């Protein structure tokens, strides 16, 4: 029983990584109609910036956090016009084009990180970022502050963005721009300003995610983004693209599933098993378990 509880907690901790990334991914989808296949890479890029600033400032956490968030916002704002340009010729096609384009961005980020930072070695974050000692330790069960904050922020982010997007005026405007920029102009939404706001917002979330992942994982490598990208997209599709709440549920479930498989069945086969299950779900219900929200 102890082992089982420990594994479930491990699963939730792994799941919160997926949840955070899926939420960021979905947000971009909802506010800008971008299938950002390389979203995890972008987050990892911010993690590297945080690390860089921590190195330079002698582990000043506040500056590090600030730098992470700023870089994430900036990166979003820089890539925004590119995506927007692709979206101009919108049709059924272009949601695919954004996906391809984001893969291009991902290729660039991974490559730059692999020989532009720390000589390509993985980076490690100071233990202070993770918040120090375990909150709870009973036998094999252990809960670290980083795990708790990642999980809590994940849940808060999902519900917060859900409310923002579906219940408030700016949220409606974001979705309107995402769906049809020309129509949005007709109702008097300032495209540039609102567009930038939405990008900045998702950038903000990206920075926050980078920070939490730094605390939760404690290190990062140039390949980290690619490693999780596929699962993040898969989770999003299984939940239903753009479905925030679905992403939360499916993300956590995948984390727990993986932990249980690794813990009780097999490590090397754990991906294969998780993927076979995901495959079956997708084949049975291509629009996702919780429905598309586009």
């Amino acid at each position, binding site marked *: 029983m102890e082992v089982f509880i420990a594994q479930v907690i491990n699963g939730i901790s792994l799941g919160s990584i997926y949840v955070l990334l899926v939420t960021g991914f979905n947000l971009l989808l909802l506010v800008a109609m971008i299938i950002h296949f390389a979203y995890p890479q972008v987050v990892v890029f911010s993690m590297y910036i945080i690390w860089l600033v921590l190195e330079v400032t002698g582990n000043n956490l506040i500056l590090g956090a600030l730098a992470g968030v700023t870089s994430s916002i900036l990166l979003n704002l820089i890539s925004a016009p590119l995506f927007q340009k692709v979206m101009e010729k919108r049709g059924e096609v272009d949601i695919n084009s954004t996906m391809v384009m984001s893969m291009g961005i991902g290729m660039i980020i991974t490559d730059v990180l692999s020989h532009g930072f720390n000589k390509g070695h993985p980076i490690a974050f100071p233990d202070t970022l993770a918040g120090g000692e375990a909150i709870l330790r009973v036998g094999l069960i252990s809960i670290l502050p980083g795990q708790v904050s990642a999980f809590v922020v994940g849940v808060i982010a999902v519900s917060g963005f859900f409310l923002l997007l579906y219940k408030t*005026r700016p949220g*409606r*405007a974001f*979705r*309107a721009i995402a*769906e*049809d920029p*020309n*129509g*949005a*102009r*007709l*109702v*008097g*939404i*300032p*495209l540039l300003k609102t567009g930038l706001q939405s990008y900045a917002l998702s950038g903000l979330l990206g920075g926050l995610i980078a920070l939490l992942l730094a605390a939760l994982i404690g290190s990062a490598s140039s390949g980290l983004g690619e490693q999780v990208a596929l699962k993040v997209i898969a989770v999003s599709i299984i939940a239903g693209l753009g479905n925030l709440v679905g992403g939360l549920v499916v993300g956590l479930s995948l984390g727990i599933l993986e932990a249980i498989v690794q813990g009780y069945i097999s490590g090397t086969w754990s991906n294969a098993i998780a993927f076979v299950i995901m495959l079956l779900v997708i084949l049975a219900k291509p629009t996702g378990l919780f429905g598309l929200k*586009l």
Partner: protein
Amino acid sequence: MASNDQTRAHADSQQALLTIENLSVSYGHVNALKHANLQVFKGEIVVLIGANGAGKTTLLETALGINTPLSGAIRFKGKPIGGAAVDRNVRAGICLVPEGRGVFASMSVLDNLLLGAHNNMKNVGKHLQRVYEWFPILEKRQDQIARTLSGGERQMLAIGRALMSSPELIMVDEPSIGLAPIVVNDIFNILRMLNQEGYTILLSEQNANKALKCAHRGYVLETGTVTLSGTAAQLLDDPGVREAYLGA
């Protein structure tokens, strides 16, 4: 229409709400508008008649700022607005009901309406109530996703959405497309009612009969040029117009 002369007299005495002078617009090598002139006075219903491709949509879109004019001036309440951003013009009080059911297809009817009031959230409740009164069916479909509305329902939604911003000048691009006669009647009635409440309306129509009957004045647009203008009554009597647009 009885009130025609009266309105005209009233209109002459004041500055035009929307003035379009010598407007030319082109899409690449297609000259969609050539030196078009048009004026809309406060309190009027003006109708723009023209065949397919005559340039009606282009004119309305340019007035709102979607297209950049090649040459010519557009003034709203005396201020030049040619080339200004669309959202500024919308906030200044112009709005456009686009041709062909341009609503946000993946959003609910209510969201669409609220988006219409994006820049004017003060009296949302009241405006919403009013739109629902005019188009009761929208209230019933409130939570339905716009994609699944019937063609006509979407058209109503588009008009309702424009009204949510309580604009000074409402431009409506071919409102009767795809609507049942009874709804078309309703819509013209509503436009007339809105007009009586003080809204100014610029309307484009191909099937000019009903439009002219509810309008004060009209312009005839042919291949990008205004070829004829006058009061609604004059146009209704004009043999050329009758032949070409009234199908008589």
